[in-house]
């Protein structure tokens, strides 16, 4: 009996966790979405135009782009700054890390 109860509890928790976002969405008074249109008339440069266009046309694609590009940029900057530090000649291996 207790075993069954535990299984049920596990299932209940799982369902609850998975569907909570839906619940949050459904809760509260329904208000209209805020849609933002990026003003591509005010950007001319290629890069900015690229992002603005994908923002306006395909939100999911824009999300994916943001993720990939920030990750990529993070790693690139990490590599570059590491090179610079090595070039300057400051020893980064013997530092102590302050943890919180």
């Amino acid at each position, binding site marked *: 009996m207790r075993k069954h109860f535990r299984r049920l509890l596990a299932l209940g928790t799982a369902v609850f966790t998975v569907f909570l976002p839906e619940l949050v969405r459904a809760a509260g008074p329904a208000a*209209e979405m*805020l*849609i933002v249109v990026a*003003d591509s008339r*005010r950007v001319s440069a290629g890069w900015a135009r690229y992002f603005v*266009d*994908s923002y*306006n*046309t395909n939100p999911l694609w824009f999300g994916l782009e943001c993720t990939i590009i920030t990750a990529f940029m993070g790693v690139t900057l990490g590599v570059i700054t590491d090179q610079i530090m090595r070039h300057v000649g400051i020893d980064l291996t013997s530092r102590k890390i302050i943890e919180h």
Partner: protein
Amino acid sequence: MKKRLCLYYIGCVLTLLLLALPTMAAEVVQGKTVTNDLNTKLITVEEYDLKFTPQNKYGNPTGKTMVFDLSEALIGKEAVPGDIVRIAYKVVDGKNKVIRIMNVTRQDVMKK
């Protein structure tokens, strides 16, 4: 270290490939709503220009009106005549199909 750099270069190439994929371009127009028919889903907008001034922070009326089809659009706050809207659209078969429409007037009020 070598393995990591190798992985990194693969990442670079993939990212560049991703960026080289063509995105759809959309035209953007901003202006004042003249009529917004909820039944036919057509909105008429008087286009504004890009000369922003402290008095006319949304630009100045150009007198040119355009009709847009909202049937497949992502719509936020419904525009009433007089509202400034910003529209991203593309031209399909001679029709201005709206992708998304922003109600600038009403969203500016609740900003921040």
